[in-house]
Structure formats: C-alpha cells, structure tokens
C-alpha cells in the first residue's frame, strides 16, 4: 500500500510506476558503473559492492523486524542504497568497514526515521560521510586502477585527480578520466559508464533532467570562472569528470525522498549542490565535496519545498 503513494505536486496522472519498478530501473542504470568499477579495481571492488548490497538488504530486513514494521525488502530500495554505498567507497577498505557503513545507512539513517520516503538524508551518502569521519585514513586510501588488487597488501596509495589538484603531481588525461582509468571510489571513476546509466534513467523517466544538468552546469561555470590563473581560465571538463560529481548528480542528488518536489525547487537545489561542491573543492582542505554538498542540500530540501510550493489556481497571493 505505502509503495503506491508517491508524492509529487499536481496535476497527477496515474502511471503504473511502483517503487519496485523505479528501483529496478536505478539498479539497471547502475550496472555499467558497477562493472566499470570492477574492471578497474578488481575482485576486491566486486567483493565490497556485493558485501554492501547484501548487508543493506539484510539490515533492512532485520531493522524492520526489530522495529515491528512490515517487511520492505521487496521494494528494492535497500539494494539501491547498498549498491550506491559500495560504489562510493574506496576500493581498498576492509569489508567489515563497508558493512558498518551499511548498518549506518539502513538502520540509523533510513529505518530509525521511518523507512523509505522518511529519511531526511541520502542513506548511502550519509554512511559514506560517517565512514570518512570514523575511519579517515582507510577511507582516503585510493588505489591505482588496473593493477592486481586481489588483496589489500598490494594496494598502493594513489592520488585521485582532485587530490593531485590539492597536493600536486601528474594529472591524468581527460580521456583517462572519461573512461575511468584514474584513482577514486569504486563507481565514480568512469564517466562513460555513469553517463550510460544516467541516460537510461532519463529515457525511462525515472529522473528528470533538471538536477543533473543544473548541478553539473553550476560546477562547470564555477570551475571556469574561478580558474587557477584568474577569471574564466578554469578547466570545466576536469571538474565535471573529477571526483564523484557525475555519480552524485545522476544517482544521489536525484533521490526522490531527499530532493525537492517541484522543478523550481529542483533547480535551486541543484545549483546549491553545485556551488557547495565547488566551494568545498577549491576553498577548503578537503579534496572532494560532492557528498557533503548533497547532504547539506538534502537538509535544506524541506525549506526549498516550502518556498517553492505551487500556488493553487485562483488561490491567495501570499501563502
């Protein structure tokens, strides 16, 4: 019953969409990025993604049971959370740490606030942020792609493009960054794979174009304006391809529960995400800010919704 109650602003059209179908589409859209991550980071990446996915579903089941609520693993939202969490982790962290992240995402962020549709933060991103604070050194140990990462001992520290920007070193070529041959989280490196998934989501109507376009657009314009050699000298493409921007813009900022409902709201939200991301990237000591930017705008979403609520036809001028 609760699965069929999708809230959006009027007018409404009955569409046969269910949570399960939408989530299945998101899972299908994530397959290219997952495969690319496994291709570039090896078996360890596959184990991590499998572990987060399975443990998220398990925790969803156990949490609903413990809180005496109906079983909701059938809506597949826990699978999506698990996949996204796995794709947001660095390839060399221990499996148990990933499972701690799953527990945090599902039990604390999602179920304690009421389950699907009630969480005020994106569970996967909140878990990533928690792990980053809890296990800082392991969460920032990146590995070189296309090496034999069969065990953690082989993993050599390797800078991400944004890390290089902060600390100096050789930047990967834009082609490498587009294909995914660079350091980073499991699922964020291959822009190509993410774009394939993102276009699938857009074509299926699962997400609207507003958030991805305005988010990456804001980042591009900001990057171009605030270039290293003065105004309008920045490298737009680098900032679009670096970090987890595309993964965030297509898959995480667009989470139904935590993004605004109206188009106007989505645009404000996406621009906010873009500005915060670039502020974090350029003016703080953190190399990457996509996850924090999206989390902060998640928190601002109720406020945005309140001020962008559409007026009733013929309704009062001021609400």
């Amino acid at each position: 019953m609760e699965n069929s109650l999708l809230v959006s602003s009027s007018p409404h059209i009955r569409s046969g969409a269910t949570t399960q179908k939408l989530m299945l589409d998101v899972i299908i859209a994530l397959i290219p990025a997952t495969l690319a991550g496994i291709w570039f980071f090896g078996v360890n990446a596959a184990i991590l993604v499998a572990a987060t996915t399975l443990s998220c579903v398990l925790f969803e089941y156990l949490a609903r049971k413990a809180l005496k609520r109906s079983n909701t693993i059938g809506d597949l939202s826990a699978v999506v959370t698990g996949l996204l969490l796995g794709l947001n982790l660095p390839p060399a962290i221990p499996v148990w740490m990933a499972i701690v992240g799953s527990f945090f995402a599902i039990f604390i962020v999602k179920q304690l606030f009421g389950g699907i549709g009630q969480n005020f933060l994106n569970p996967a991103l909140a878990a990533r942020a928690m792990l980053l604070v809890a296990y800082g050194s392991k969460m920032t140990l990146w590995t070189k792609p296309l090496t034999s990462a069969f065990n953690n001992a082989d993993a050599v520290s390797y800078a991400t493009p944004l890390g290089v920007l902060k600390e100096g070193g050789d930047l990967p070529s834009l082609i490498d960054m587009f294909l995914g041959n660079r350091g980073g989280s499991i699922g964020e490196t291959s822009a190509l794979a993410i774009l394939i998934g993102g276009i699938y989501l857009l074509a299926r109507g699962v997400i609207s174009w507003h958030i991805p376009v305005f988010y990456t657009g804001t980042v591009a314009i900001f990057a171009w304006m605030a270039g290293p050699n003065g105004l309008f000298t920045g490298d737009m493409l680098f900032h679009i391809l670096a970090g987890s921007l595309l993964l965030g813009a297509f898959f995480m900022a667009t989470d139904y529960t935590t993004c605004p409902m109206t188009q106007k709201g989505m645009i404000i939200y996406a621009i906010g995400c873009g500005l915060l991301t670039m502020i974090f990237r350029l003016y703080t000591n953190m190399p990457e800010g996509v996850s924090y930017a999206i989390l902060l705008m998640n928190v601002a979403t109720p406020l945005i919704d309140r001020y962008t609520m559409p007026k009733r036809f013929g309704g009062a001028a001021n609400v």
Partner: protein
Amino acid sequence: MAEKKSVFSVFFNGLIKENPTFRLLLGMCPSLAVTTMAKNGLGMGAAATFVLVCSNLVISLIRKIVPDKVRIPAYITVIAAFTTIVQLLLAALLPELNKQLGIYIPLIVVNCIIFARAEMFAQKNGPVASIMDGLGMGLGFTIAITVIGSVREILGAGTWMGIPVTVNLFDPATIFILPPGGFMVMGFLVAAFNKIFSDKKADKKADTKAACAAGCPGCSKAMHGGEA
C-alpha cells in the same frame, strides 16, 4: 506540593525515575561536550554533584528569607560560590582533569540540573531532603555521563579510563569521540534507558498532567506531582 516522601525515595528518584540526563534531558551541554572519555565524565559528574549538594543545602536553608522576586539572582550567587570553590580545588589538586574539563567547570554555574533542582526541590523542601535530592540527582548525572563517556571512549578510542581494551578486536571509529558520535550515543542511550525503565502507567499520567498544565511552572509541578 507533593506529599512528604522518605529521604530514600528522594535519593533514588534522581537515579532512575527522574535521571537528569536520561529522563529529564537536563544538562545536555556538559553531557555531550565532556564525555569523550569515561574519566572526564566521572570528574565532571563529581564536580557537579558537589556543587549540587552544597547549593541545594544552602538554598533550602535560605528558602524562607529570600524574597520570591530576587530568588534567581540569589540562587546564582550561591551556585557561583560553590562552583568557584570546585574550580579552585580542581586547579590545585587535579590540574590535569581541570585542563581536560576546561570551560565546562565554570559553566556549572549555569548548569540547568542545578537550577532545576533549586527551583523544583530545594526551595520547597527541608535541608535533609534537599541534600538527598542533590546526592541522588548528582549520582544519576555522574553515572549517566560516565556511561556515555565509557561508550564513546571504547568505541572511539579503544580505551576505557585510559586503559586500552579493544586492541585486537576492532579499529576504533574516531567519529564517536567527535560531536556527531556524542549525539548518536546520547540518543541511543536515552532510548535504551527509557525502554528498560519506563513505567508506562506513570508516564501516561505524567504526560496528561504535563499536557494540560500551562507553561513551565505547570510542567515542573506535573513532573513533581506525577509520582506522588
């Protein structure tokens, strides 16, 4: 005013039924800020207990001669005097702990547990009952923040009272000794405490009373009269 209660029920009241941290949710600032280590919780609790007992006693003694209109400044003066004593004692005897607790020792002056007990208990009760109330509340506070400190220290630093305890078990998660961990541990402990000790009937009664009484004076009366 509630019926006369035995001094023991007054004492145990502060431990569980009206545990200042877990039930009344008073004194949140020190409960979250100094509990990065069990030892700090213990030290903070002891300091606050001392001030609470002494100020309860003095306020109870002077309750009939202080005019109602100036009672708050009078209480602050009393509490500030004892806080200063604690601070000077700590600085002289336990400089290490004093450094760890820092600003939170002077801030005992405005600790709402001490204020709440002065307002809700000491100004209405005799000195012996007030001392017992101060002891019970102080002990309840000390136990609560020591527990919070222990959980945070074990999970966040892998030690307890400075002794390593989890060396080969798991990697400590730094987040627990940072502010977000404090809020999480606090929330879970409050939930667990209420689950274990909640007396559903009494809660319901207190709830309805609190709901119909208007404003803070009504609330404090309901809290007080609820179990009479």
